[in-house]
């Protein structure tokens, strides 16, 4: 077990493994996202209240879910890097940030586009929207903090603290619709005992979430490879040609 962790934690091995894994994430991700898009736009019936506008759900909810999921991955990776001093974990956390920020931006933008016809406004300062906006600032702050250090080790440590402290925001986003009165509708899917939307409308949502997860798997493999190369620029395995 320890041998395995050690082997995986070694940059050349991780670099090669990630290169092999990436297409196994990428192609299924593309297929599932296209399938879910077709299903969500064409096959799923229009909502009896929201008409066709509800179809925005299929890009909005998975983006919002990914924005929180990636933040947790980033914070866990940063914590592992801090506790066990594993550089690869720090590199993984750094690779998460731009992907997470993209999904957070998408969740906010598609939510805003959905909010206009449904609530009559692009934006309200309610708990759900505000805490999601804070998540975007956490990602951006994390990236800005990293780039403000020349020394990667100091950047790792400082940004890890920010990532770990910021994780408090994730449960706040999740429970914001229950703790405060907000315009945002409560979760209609995670009530597993009795989801409040029809199963034929749920399928594209699940497929899109899996597609986005795989897309994240692909993107982090690619970014982590770039990150490893940048950090290992003077290492011997690279000098000898990988």
């Amino acid at each position, binding site marked *: 077990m320890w041998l395995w962790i050690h082997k995986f934690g070694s940059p050349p091995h991780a670099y090669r493994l990630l290169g092999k894994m990436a297409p196994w994430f990428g192609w299924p991700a593309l297929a599932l996202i296209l399938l879910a898009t077709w299903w969500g736009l064409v096959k799923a019936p229009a909502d009896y209240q929201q008409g066709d506008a509800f179809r925005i759900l299929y*890009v909005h909810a998975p983006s919002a879910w990914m924005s929180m999921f990636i933040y947790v991955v980033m914070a866990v990776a940063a914590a592992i890097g801090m506790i066990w001093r594993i550089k690869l974990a720090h590199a993984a956390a750094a690779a998460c940030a731009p992907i997470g920020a993209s999904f957070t931006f998408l969740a906010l*933008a598609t939510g805003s586009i959905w909010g206009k016809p449904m609530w009559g406004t692009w934006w309200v300062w309610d708990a759900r929207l505000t805490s999601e906006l804070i998540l975007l600032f956490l990602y951006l702050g994390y990236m800005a903090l990293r780039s403000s250090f020349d020394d990667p080790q100091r950047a790792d440590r400082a940004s890890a603290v920010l990532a770990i402290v910021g994780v408090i925001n994730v449960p706040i986003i999740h429970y914001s619709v229950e703790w405060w009165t907000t315009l945002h509708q409560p979760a209609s899917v995670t009530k597993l005992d009795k989801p409040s939307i029809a199963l034929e409308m749920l399928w594209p949502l699940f497929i899109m979430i899996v597609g986005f997860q795989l897309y994240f798997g692909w993107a982090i493999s690619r970014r982590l490879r770039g990150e490893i*190369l940048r950090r290992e620029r003077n290492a011997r395995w690279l000098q000898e040609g990988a």
Partner: protein
Amino acid sequence: MDLQEFLRMGGYAVYVWTAYGLTALVLLLNWVSARRRESLEQESARRRSRPD
């Protein structure tokens, strides 16, 4: 199924298509930037391994 009816999205065309278009754009940009970062680093690693 009527294509025009489909594109109209029950009157919500602007919202639905903007949301999907934006999602596609952001995913695509992420794809391009991850790819480019990786190949830039590969290029610089290659240059370092063969100093001439």
